């Protein structure tokens, strides 16, 4: 996989709110998308992963259109800020299922799970907010996707979780495209910082 995350003129329009137009060209590295509350960071990530269909523009992840080519979504993992994995799943079932969906049923998530301090048999609807957030992160990593979209990944994490995430950011910097949203600073230096403002265009073509 040597193609990046390409976005051209992406616009998501609500009746009284608009995100974009957004034009991005991101390669391997850590990319920090920041902005005030309500400026559209989560909306943009949801549009990039295919959860929302933008009214204008195109998205290519690893050369695939995430809207019209579901097979291309195997290269992408998304960890939402508001957990939405089914609560009846256990932690192990969540990452195993996501790995199978991404075409890597033999992917071993036990090491990552232990690093995150999560019991495998823990049901997601019985997990604490921090545990639930870690489980979403683990599910996003399942199957080793090339593109990671992380929405407020540091929320609810304790010191141990933050240290682990810092270590992982260091490792991912060289082999993945990681787009992280926060309104605070990242624990590591980002390769690029994208500032999103409500209703304003965003353009970043640093990687070609």
């Amino acid at each position, binding site marked *: 996989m040597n193609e990046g995350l390409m976005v051209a003129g992406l616009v*998501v*329009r*609500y009746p009284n709110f608009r995100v974009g137009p957004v034009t991005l060209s991101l390669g391997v590295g850590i990319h920090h998308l920041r902005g005030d509350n309500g400026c559209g960071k989560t909306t943009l990530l949801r549009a990039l*992963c*295919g*959860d*929302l*269909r933008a*009214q204008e523009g195109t998205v290519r992840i690893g050369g695939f259109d*995430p*809207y019209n080519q*579901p*097979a*291309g*979504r*195997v290269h*992408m993992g*998304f960890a939402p800020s508001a957990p*939405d*994995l*089914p609560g*009846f*799943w*256990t932690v*192990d*079932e969540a990452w*195993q*299922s*996501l790995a*199978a*969906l*991404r*075409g890597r*049923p033999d992917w071993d998530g036990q090491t990552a799970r232990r690093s995150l301090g999560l019991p495998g048999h823990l*049901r997601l609807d019985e997990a604490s907010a921090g545990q639930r957030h870690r489980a979403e992160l683990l599910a996003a990593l399942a199957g080793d996707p090339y593109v990671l979209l992380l929405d407020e990944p540091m929320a609810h994490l304790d010191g141990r979780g933050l240290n682990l995430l810092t270590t992982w950011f260091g490792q991912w910097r060289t082999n993945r495209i990681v787009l992280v949203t926060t309104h605070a600073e990242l624990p590591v230096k980002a390769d690029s910082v994208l500032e999103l403002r409500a209703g304003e265009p965003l353009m970043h073509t640093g990687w070609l």
Partner: protein
Amino acid sequence: MSLGLLPGWTLLAFIGVQVKDVVPWPELRQSLSAGDPVQMALWVSALALTMALLCILPVRSAVYAPGLRGLWRQPIAAPQWGLVFAPWVMLAALPLAAVSGLWPHPHWVSQAIVWSALWTVAVMGLASLTLHGFAIGLVAIGALGLAAFSMWSMPLLAPALAVAALAVLPVSVGLIWERTRRPTRRWRPSLPGRPFAAFDAMVRRDLLCLLRSSPGVLFASLIPPIPAFIALVALRNEGVIAGPASVGAGLIVLGFTSPVVGSAFATLSDRLGPMLDPPRWPMEPFARALALTVLGEMLMLPTALAVLAAVFPEGMSVGLRLVLASSAISAVGVWCLAQNHGNPEPGAVASWHLLAALLVCVIGTLPWPWSVVVLAAVVFGALSDAANALERSRGRVI
């Protein structure tokens, strides 16, 4: 009431009007008046108890709905909850109220209200799944029987029982309300192994959802095969069904199983919401629809096997038609689910599916080659259109 249920209710009203013209109601009332009062009261009690037991799961789903959690911690007392819930539960007593219209009583409306109120007390008590609740529920059912009996000899007893029911209602609702405050141990069934492919992962996910959130839906699929097999074999041995008639009988039995599939899909829609078909997961809409069809087939399998075993001597063509009919019932269930994806009223899925399943059963009775061709077309068409509906709902700006 959801707009999604309106077509079903309209059809029901239409059927009701037609039945009204066909059934000789005055004669029926007269014959009931001439019946043994004790026997009639027992009959009504049994009917009310069966209806109350069937309502336990839906009532618990409504009371413990995640959307109401925010209200639980508000300073709302049990009587106030009773005022909120009782009218909705009482709506489910409509069939019972209709039966009360047959009773020999000059004021059947007041009688219907008494029966409905007592039945509501019983349902709320039974749905609390506590010892006290069961006691209240059984006493209320007994009182309902007494109210039915009183029409022959003690006309004033019914209003007295209505007042008593209204007095007990807050206690009955309070029991289910108290239950929400206690931590409960959950049954944790699981499936062996881990998913080996995307398709498998989705089927397992849906199956686990049913197994862990509404196991009753799965167990319900195991009940019909036994009476179905016994009834079909008995009818065949008696010479009542043979040849084409056996196809019709088998399809009727399969039609009876269709609510199992409909309620399973309605449960999935309710429990999973938008996660029924998450747009960001790498799965083609047709494969997703097929995964749901496989789940529906799994639920129909016990009855389909029982029917096949019962009608097997009639030949392979009958078997093929039954297999295709069960696939079609499952596929139209998926179609209903896909069309209602995003609809906040999951009951619409079940009501639409029941109508569609009846249509499938009618198609199955067509002559031999045509029924197979049309049923196969129904399966493919339902799946294709379900996939289109899922595709449309993906990535919708919300």
